[in-house]
């Protein structure tokens, strides 16, 4: 009845992750909390999943086959699968696995001694990676919902993981309450989408939305746009877009710093993946697209402005980074709003967002690796704790400056490539206002980043401050992220091609549906 064995092969990265998590939990249980190679198991799992992803990647599109776990009767496709394993999925699988792996490595030293449940912590990171992979390839509203909630629940637990720590608790609870309310709204919106189209399968929704004889075509925007608005509440919560961002500062500040690092990249990328696939493949219809482009443009502008302005007054670096990463989500949305654009090297609007995410991930994880190292040594995450860091840990200080410059978008660095792609896409689609806004708010960002830089370089270290020792694992992450940040900036060609291919997968399904449309 289904292409089960082929599907399982295509699903191997997720299978590996789940099995790895189960093994990790069992080993941790048996070893009674002692060190028994938990790190090796976890990292090995991630590496193996990454290998599987890269092995599957050149296999190209699996969509022609109806997706994974599609239902067949006598060889005829009767229902598209809930998961597709295309270039887009592979790209986001890579993003999720790499970011989880880097967060794991940078957090290893930090979590040691802070919680007795390190095995569970690792397993939860693996489950997070699974959930993000699922979000990347989810092609059915039900799986979208389940995957998003999977990621949410694991991240709530991770945020509140240090249960003796009142701030971690508080962060977890706030994250949970905001998250549950927004996801309830999202679920309500999803039911309306189901009602408007009669199915939960995204390809079929795409068909229904585009078909000219759809009963709803006359008031499409009347139902679908309000429901998309509700769905955006849920996705916007994961991505931390402006009306749904209030959780971010508290959750970022209270969460264990490695979790903060993870929250700033993982859920954001996965949420963007869902958003991109839904909007660019399922809800791309001539009558519909202009409406949501306007909506997204509005959100993008609000997010960039509010995120950057609110960051100005922050004294805690984790809070500052929270607002900074809210603002970064705004820049990503500029790319989404530039739907229909084609810029540098045939990069579509979708491609620019993908490229931006790629650049952002390495920059932010690198930056947070530095913050984790400082936090681990000083137990303090206020900006004042960075006074004289140049003298205490030159590597950290210099690396942080590079990452900040990349986030601001200074030329030969990754952030510049991402911003350039996104803004040029905005300009080609006449969203000049958004592009100008992006550049202006970038200047604001430079101001608050500079406050940290000033503390590191121009203020004296407190008396008796010892040099900060950086663990080998942390320095590995910092060096790796530095290398990638510079590499993407200096040799953007390869990465542009990767982004273009990833985007092409989603466009391909969209084009199929468009062909159906044209046939009518």
């Amino acid at each position, binding site marked *: 009845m289904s292409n089960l064995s082929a599907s399982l092969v295509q699903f191997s990265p997720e299978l590996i992750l789940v099995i790895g998590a189960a093994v990790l939990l069992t080993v941790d249980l048996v070893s009674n909390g002692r060190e028994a190679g938990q790190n090796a198991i976890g990292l090995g799992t991630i590496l193996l999943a990454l290998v599987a992803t890269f092995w599957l990647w050149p296999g190209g599109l699996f969509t022609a086959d109806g997706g994974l776990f599609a*239902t067949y*009767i006598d060889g005829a*496709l*009767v*229902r*598209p699968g809930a998961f597709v394993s295309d270039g887009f999925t592979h790209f986001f699988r890579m993003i999720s696995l790499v970011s989880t792996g880097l967060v794991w490595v940078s957090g290893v030293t930090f979590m040691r001694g802070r919680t007795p449940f390190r095995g569970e912590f690792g397993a939860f990171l693996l489950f997070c990676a699974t959930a993000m992979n699922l979000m990347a390839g989810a092609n059915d*509203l*039900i799986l979208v*919902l*389940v995957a998003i*909630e999977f990621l*949410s*629940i694991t991240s*709530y*637990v991770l945020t*509140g993981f240090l*249960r*003796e720590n*009142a*701030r971690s*608790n*508080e*962060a*977890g*609870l*706030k994250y*949970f*309450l905001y998250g*549950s*309310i927004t996801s*309830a*709204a999202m*679920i*309500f919106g*999803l*039911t*309306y989408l*189901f*009602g408007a*189209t*009669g*199915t*939960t*399968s995204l390809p*079929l929704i795409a*068909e*229904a939305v585009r078909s000219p004889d759809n009963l709803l075509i006359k008031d499409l925007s009347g139902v679908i746009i309000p429901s998309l608005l509700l769905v955006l509440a849920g996705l916007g919560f994961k991505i931390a877009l402006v009306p749904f961002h209030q959780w971010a*500062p*508290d959750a970022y*500040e*209270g969460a264990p710093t490695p979790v903060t690092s993870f929250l700033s990249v993982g859920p954001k990328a996965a949420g963007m993946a869902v958003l991109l696939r839904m909007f660019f493949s399922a809800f791309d219809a001539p009558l519909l697209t202009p409406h949501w482009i306007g909506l997204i443009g509005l959100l993008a502008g609000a997010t960039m402005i509010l995120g950057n302005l609110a960051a100005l*007054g*922050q*004294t*805690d670096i984790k*809070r500052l980074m929270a607002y900074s990463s809210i603002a970064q989500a705004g820049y990503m949305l500029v790319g989404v709003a530039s739907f229909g654009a084609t810029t540098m090297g045939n990069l579509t609007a979708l491609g620019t967002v993908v490229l931006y995410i790629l650049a952002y991930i390495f920059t932010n994880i690198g930056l947070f690796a530095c913050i984790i190292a400082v936090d681990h040594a000083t137990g303090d995450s206020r900006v004042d704790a960075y006074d004289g860091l140049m003298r205490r840990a030159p590597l950290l200080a210099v690396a942080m400056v590079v990452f900040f410059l990349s986030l601001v978008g200074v030329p030969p660095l990754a952030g510049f490539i991402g911003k350039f792609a996104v803004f040029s896409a905005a300009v080609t689609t006449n969203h000049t206002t958004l592009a100008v806004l992006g550049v202006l708010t970038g200047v604001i960002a430079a101001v608050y980043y500079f406050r940290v830089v000033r503390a590191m370089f121009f203020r004296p270290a407190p008396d008796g401050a010892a040099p900060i020792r950086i663990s080998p694992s942390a320095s590995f992450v910092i060096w790796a992220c530095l290398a990638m940040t510079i590499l993407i900036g200096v040799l953007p060609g390869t990465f542009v091609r990767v982004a273009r291919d990833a985007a092409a997968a989603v466009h391909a399904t969209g084009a199929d549906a468009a062909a159906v449309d044209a046939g009518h």
Partner: protein
Amino acid sequence: MEASIPLWWYLLVAAALFGTGLFGALSRRNAVGVLMGIELMLNGANINAVAFWRYIAVPSGAGLNGMDGQVFAIMVIALAAAEAAVGLALIISIYRNRQSVLVEDFSTMRG
């Protein structure tokens, strides 16, 4: 049966539950109360899903069962259970540290 009760009655009930839940979630001081509001919102969504399952035409190619609405509702029920378990664990854990479950008391972090 569907002839007598119009679909929008169900949708209205669903909207009412959703709205009441939203009010509860936004206005309660007690974190458990907020959670109850969230459960009401989810129930509203579920009524939608089941009502649509009953009334809405299934497009061709959408499989042989046409049970998407019910499956959706079952998934939401299971997710609600998982969410409630984690949420209440967080509430109990914070109560242990703070001796309070009032949301407004959780404001050590500001800025």
